[in-house]
Each structure stands twice: as structure tokens, then as C-alpha cells.
């Protein structure tokens, strides 16, 4: 199964049930936003991006033995921001999510994405 493809399709189409199902129990989650993160916070942030963004494009995808790196272009009404995502995959589920946002662009074009 193309776990990464299913993951991106799920969250960009705001399918929160599928997003939760993709995450393994006790999945490790990290991001560089100035707020604590757990599974629920991650799902909420992805939900907010999905509903606020005009478009989300996968700019690049790099596979590795146990995971994948994804590069996104998040297009908001007044500008766009980049995000990198590193997923670790085991047994068809995601065991680790690490997200790197361009925080300057996120704060400018996606206000309210996360609770500061």
C-alpha cells in the first residue's frame, strides 16, 4: 500500500478519520511550531490547513527504507508557505511524523494555525 500517498490524500482532503487511522498508536510527533504537539494537535493543524488553503501541492517525495520525506507547497489566499514532512512507516501505519514549517510564512499566511 502507498502509505505516504494515502496519508497526503487523506489530510489534504480533510479526512480526519483516515488521518487518525493512519497514525499508529503512540506515534511520535514533532514539529517546529511554537506549540506543543500530540496526535490531536497534529490532526487539528492539518485540518485547519486543509480547510483554509486554496491548494496543497506535493512538490517532492523521497522514499527511504523505512519512511518517506515529503515537500509541500501550501497555498493560502494571500500567499504560500512551504512544509517538509518526514514520515516513518512500519506495518502499513505511520509511527513517526516530523514536520518542518516555514514559520515566517505560516504565521503570515496561515494565522491561527496553531495555539501559541
Amino acid at each position, binding site marked *: 500500500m502507498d502509505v505516504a500517498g494515502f496519508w497526503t490524500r487523506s489530510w489534504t482532503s480533510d479526512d480526519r478519520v483516515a488521518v487518525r487511522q493512519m497514525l499508529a498508536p503512540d506515534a511520535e510527533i514533532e514539529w517546529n511550531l511554537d506549540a506543543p504537539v500530540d496526535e490531536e494537535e497534529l490532526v487539528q493543524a492539518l485540518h485547519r490547513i486543509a480547510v483554509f488553503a486554496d491548494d496543497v501541492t506535493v512538490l*517532492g*517525495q523521497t522514499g*527511504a527504507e523505512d519512511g518517506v520525506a515529503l515537500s509541500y507547497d501550501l497555498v493560502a489566499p494571500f500567499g504560500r508557505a512551504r512544509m517538509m514532512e518526514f514520515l516513518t512507516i512500519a506495518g502499513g501505519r505511520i509511527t513517526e511524523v516530523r514536520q518542518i514549517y516555514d514559520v*515566517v510564512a505560516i504565521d503570515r499566511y496561515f494565522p491561527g494555525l496553531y495555539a501559541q
Partner: protein
Amino acid sequence: MTQPEVHLIGGSRAEALRLAPIATAMREQGRLRPVLMAAGPDPVGVDDTFAAFGLSPMITMPTGNDPAEALRRFDAFWGGQVPSAVVVRDFLAAAMAAHWRRVPVVQIDAGRRSSDVTPIGEDADRRLLTQITTMHLSATPLTAMNLLDERVAAGDILLTGGTAADAARALADRHPTAPDRTRRLIVVGADAAPVVAALRPLTVRYPDAAVVALDDQLPRLDRAALLASAYVLVTADDDLAEEALAAGAPVFLVGEPGGLTEAVDAGSARSVGPDPATVAVRMAGLLGSRVRRESMVTGGNPYGDGLAAGRVAQATAALLGHGRFPDPMPARPVAGVSR
């Protein structure tokens, strides 16, 4: 005791020029084992640049222009040989691969921004790189402040200066001949080629002046010698301008000053309009008055004091638990004012 292995990744000639002095300093300090990597779309050019310093890359990895492919190659390589840290300048894909494997990323010339507000472009890549950098080594106070503006922790930033000045010194030492001062050379970067035709008539009015179009493929030693001989450099390329300032040549910046506001403030660079005729008028003024040119030279190079490579090497070693962090680059004296 085994020395920690640090990979210095040159993704372009400009990056290689700035990394080479760091590799030399790391070897001299004896705390780290530097491994030079020639990567990016032009690894041969990177290799040639390292060779100008008497160095050769231990690893050559053509990565092309596709960031995803570059990321894949670095990740595959580091799967078998994990470094203790990597040092990059602008190479986002390499830094991402290191971050993915939780290898500390050290960035030199950190905090440079072009002030380009378009959200996708050079600055977007630089901001992302900032987010995954472990230690930010800035060339100037202004670039350090750019990082603070982006909420980087002050303790993760060190003002080391830029290593282009170290490179200029090293290349000058290696070049067999002294700079040519018999003619006033107006060197024009390849990016500003349309200006050449507008400048040529000035050589009739000033017979000791000559206009030289800089060939990008010129060997590094010859290029450094040419910049050291330049009466003035005309370019729109920030990296080339910084190399000229490091070699002691003033700069006419065609178009917006972009990321070189410090040099414009110091007076060693001037922003001239993109119109070739305007550049020619400004050049005539500079050729007509040596005082004007010397006043520009007095502005100096705000991007480094020639000791940055040693600070970068020491800071990287300290990050890995070897020794203490260096003192930051001292504040630059105001031109013409002794302290």
C-alpha cells in the same frame, strides 16, 4: 581517540570557496576530521574550487537540480556512513537529509536574506534551512538579527564572520604573481554582461582603464587574482560581490542591493541602476576621482575579518563536545575612526 567526522558539503563553486578554509582550519585545530563533499549540479566546478586550495573532495556526489533526488542520494549515502555533523551554506536538500537522520546541521553565512518578499524562492529555502539548523554561524550582526526576527534562540547563533575573506587570503597566498596595478581594471561579472558595451567608451577617455568581462569558468586562482587586481567590480551577483570585497575591491551593484546592505552602508559597495548608461555615468565619476574609489575601499569588507574559518571550526568542535565555543567576531571599527 577517534576524531568526529564532519561532512562539509559544497553544492556550488561559491559554497566550495567558503567551505575550503573551514576544512583547512579543522585540520589545523586537530579536533575534527573534515570530509569535503562535492555535490550539486556542478560537482566538477566544486571539485576545481577545492583544488585551488590544495584540497580534494573525499566524496563526489552529483545531485542534479532536483531537491527530492538530492535528498534521496544524501540519505542513502549517510545510511552507511553517518557523520557527527554536517556543515552547509545554502544546500537545503543536504541539510534536510542530515536532519532526517538526526545529524546536527551547522550553517555558515546563516541569516542571509534577500528581502525578496515572494514566498517561494531563495528566501523560502533559507528560512526552511534555518528551521533545521542546529548552530547558526552568521557573517554579520544584521544577518544574526534576521535569525532573531525568525525566533531562533539567541544561544544557537554565533557571529563568526564569513569565510570568503579567509578564502581570498588563502588564494592570494597561493597565487604566484602579485595583483596587476598597472591598469585600472573594471571587472564585469557575467551576470552584468550587458554593461560591458556601455563601459568600453570610457577606456578612450581613461587610457589606463580596461574593461574585463569575467568568465565564470576562469580557474579559481586566476579569478581571485583578477578580483584582487580590480579597480572596481560591476555585478548583480551577491556572492561574487562578497568575494571582490574580500579581495579589497569596491563593488558597483547593478540593481537592488539585495543581501549586501551592510556593504552599501559601509560604503564599499554602491547600488547603481540596472540601466547600462547609468552604470557608465557612475563609473566615469569613479574613474575621474581616485579619492572616490579609495573612500570606497576604506569601507572595507563587512562580511568577515579573515579569521572566520577558525571560529567555525572551533564552534563545530564545541558543538560536538570538543573544547569551548570561540568568542564572536569583534565589532568592526567605523571606517576611518580608530578605537
